[in-house]
């Protein structure tokens, strides 16, 4: 069962294109959508939500068609974005009064609990909130209407490390129910990746991979060694390679093959997601 099913989604902009993207986001798990800035993560999320209309392709959320069943879908999802578009001149209390009646399953005491927990005073004006506080408020709203699917666009960019950790607990709480799902996008690999089950890597408007994080980290390898090891055939094995006067560091996506190829002559390490992102985005050879 998939929480989100995207088929052949395309949107062309003058400067870049989200090109024929198909993607399944699994129900019951946390999926991290990673990739450098400006490669289409936000556009993809906005298309899922119907905020941006795709040129072609289809989106299914929780088994319902977008945008035909948009209203029913939006009852069941929570949206957190690093941009906050609430009415700036209203207080948190007014904002709640405005938002709550839209949701069938609004839980007021839950909302109050989150405000307390996040140290947000209902009397505060939206315009006076810091970026991190706005994200907390959006999260409180999202978690207070029993959302089955949480969609978060760059949620951690304005948050301090302390709250980022707290957020892990909140999200894990939501995931205690195995029917719930979470997808978030980020361009910086953060603590959030710790709890992500699946990683979807998007680069230049295309999906590079969408698989379990553990499989990704097992499949890829970071190889470090002397320059003498490199020749043109071996260079071809790398997704990205950084060559310096003191040696090279490169990424391969077939650890097994690399282990055979290099044997004990080079160091094989498990890459971080950041390594994978860096070498894939740069591609080819990087001289430093």
């Amino acid at each position: 069962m998939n929480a989100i099913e995207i088929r052949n989604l395309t949107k062309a902009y003058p400067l870049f294109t989200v090109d024929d993207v198909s993607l399944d986001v699994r129900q019951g798990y946390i999926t991290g959508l990673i990739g450098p800035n400006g490669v289409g993560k936000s556009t993809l999320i906005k298309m899922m939500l119907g905020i941006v209309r795709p040129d072609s392709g289809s989106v299914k959320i929780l088994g319902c068609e977008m945008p035909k069943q948009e209203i029913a879908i939006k009852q069941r999802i929570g949206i957190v974005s690093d941009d906050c578009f609430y009415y700036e001149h209203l207080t948190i209390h007014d904002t709640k009064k405005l938002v709550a009646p839209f949701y069938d399953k609004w839980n007021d005491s839950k909302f109050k609990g989150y405000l307390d927990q996040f140290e947000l005073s209902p009397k505060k004006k939206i315009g006076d909130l810091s970026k991190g506080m706005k994200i907390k408020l959006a999260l409180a709203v999202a978690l207070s209407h029993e959302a089955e699917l949480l969609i978060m666009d760059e949620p951690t960019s304005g948050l301090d490390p302390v709250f980022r950790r707290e957020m892990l607990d909140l999200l894990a709480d939501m995931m205690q129910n195995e029917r719930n799902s979470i997808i978030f996008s980020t361009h910086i690999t953060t603590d959030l990746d710790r709890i992500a089950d699946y990683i979807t890597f998007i680069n230049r408007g295309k999906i590079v991979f969408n698989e379990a994080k553990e499989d990704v980290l097992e499949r890829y390898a970071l190889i470090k060694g002397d320059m003498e090891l490199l020749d043109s055939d071996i260079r071809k094995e790398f997704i990205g390679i950084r060559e310096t006067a003191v040696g090279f560091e490169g990424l391969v996506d077939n650890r097994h093959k690399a282990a055979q190829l290099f044997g004990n002559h080079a160091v094989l390490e498990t890459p971080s997601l950041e390594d994978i992102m860096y070498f894939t985005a740069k591609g080819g050879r990087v001289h430093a």
Partner: protein
Amino acid sequence: MLNLLRKDFIALKSSLWMTLFYLAVFSIAFIPRSDFSIYFVGIYTAFASVSLVTMIDIKNNNHHFLVTLPVSRKHIVQAKYITAILFMLFGVLGSFGIHWFVKLAFPQLNKPDYTVLDILVPMGILLVLTSIYMPLFYALSKKGAGIINAVFLIALIIMAQPTAFMMTLLNENHMMSSNLLFMAAAGILLLFIASYYVAVTLFSRKDM
């Protein structure tokens, strides 16, 4: 739908007094000076209020937020048309009430007897204005909508004198036959309905 209307009034809460302020200012400005003050006060108050309630949705790109709520874009547009009608009624009826009072309290101003037409004509003009304004508001970006808003307000001020002149002509030549009135009313209603569908279509296609 009700929730969206509610939303407009919550969002306006702190500036709802502005509409009363418009009514007072325009009354003071027009009543002693113009024979057609009943039209001007109503139209200006209503249109200024409508632009207040539309601008509030784009001040902070709030449409981005509205489209994440469990409502369709059609409903967002629909609710705004209904709010606009409410503000039109407020402006026009408010103006009518004030003139009725002024006629009683200040007979020296020599205000004419007011009829139902003095409610219907400004309503008609407002419907036409709103029919043009709304689709533009929903099609344009935040910046564009701000410009359109300013253009409309300036146009209203410039058009005041020529319109007054036209009205005088019409009245003097007794061109206000009931047939013509009926046709005009039907045309305006059609325009308003068409405008609604155009606005819904434009807004539904728009990328936020």
